[in-house]
């Protein structure tokens, strides 16, 4: 167990500002899992999520004064940083893909390649696959709300603070997101049933 394990985030960052590597190492060890999970759920790619978390932490190491304990809790602020970094990463990826005309399909939130879908279909049970598909189709704000409240298990107040919206707005986003997810899962299931009927008819 690290000697810094008992220090809170604010103390670790103040040590970091003095150039203390061990304090930074403790901060990284303490929070990487949760920020990776958020990045992965936003980008749907493990390597991309790792890139984003790594870049975010290293930028923070270079500029620790960017966070001030007076303004917000460290994790609240860093969740926002990671979300922004994810969208930045997506934008850069889409730009580089559009510049390369040889690439036809690319996986962005909401746009999924056939290959990825088939791979996903093997990994998840059917309804979970439909749910993941629904998550990819959600608008960014609704997906962030689900990721923060449901998956990262943040209190709604903190999630609203991360997203820079009011508590009411967050509640509304959650309701709309769940409704959209239910619709997507239902429609994909219906489509699958139609496919099955069609396939059964053809095979007779």
């Amino acid at each position: 167990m690290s000697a810094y394990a008992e220090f809170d985030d604010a103390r670790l960052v103040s040590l970091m500002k003095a150039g203390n590597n061990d304090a930074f190492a403790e901060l990284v060890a303490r929070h990487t899992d949760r920020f990776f999970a958020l990045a992965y759920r936003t980008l749907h790619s493990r390597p991309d999520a790792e890139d984003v978390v790594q870049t975010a932490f290293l930028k923070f190491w270079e500029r620790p004064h960017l966070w001030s304990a007076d303004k917000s809790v460290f994790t609240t602020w860093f969740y926002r940083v990671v979300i922004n970094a994810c969208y930045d990463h997506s934008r850069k990826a889409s730009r580089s893909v559009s510049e390369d005309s040889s690439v036809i399909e690319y996986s962005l939130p909401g746009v999924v390649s056939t290959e990825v879908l088939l791979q996903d279909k093997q990994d998840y049970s059917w309804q979970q696959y439909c749910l993941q598909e629904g998550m990819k189709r959600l608008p960014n704000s609704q997906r962030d709300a689900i990721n923060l409240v449901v998956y990262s298990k943040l209190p709604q107040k903190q999630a609203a603070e991360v997203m820079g919206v009011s508590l009411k707005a967050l509640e509304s986003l959650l309701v709309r997101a769940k409704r959209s997810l239910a619709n997507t899962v239902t429609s994909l299931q219906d489509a699958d049933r139609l496919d099955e009927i069609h396939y059964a008819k053809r095979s007779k």
Partner: protein
Amino acid sequence: MPNEVNKDSPVDIDALLAMSDDIEHDTTPLQKLIIEQAVLLPQKTEATRRNILFRGQFLRRFTVITACAAIFGIGLNIFLADAPTQFVEQYGLSSEELDFQELIMIEDDILFAQL
């Protein structure tokens, strides 16, 4: 499969979300990589930040002062270029071959004459 949901059951999104909240991923190698890279990266300390801010401020002030001086210079130039014409128009003199110095002398003469 423990997470399997009956395909024909009505959609319970909360239950589905609750079932899919685990991401099995070992971030230990990532943590090591971040820490190793941080050791190699110089930290932009408060002193460096202030230094950068100071240089930025200095550059901004220098630019503003230079711009003001340039505008003042251009204005003065226009005023001086225009002054003989105004003088000539005011006293009804011919402007041919008069330079600014002569005009000043003429103005002095007129002033003295008025006194």
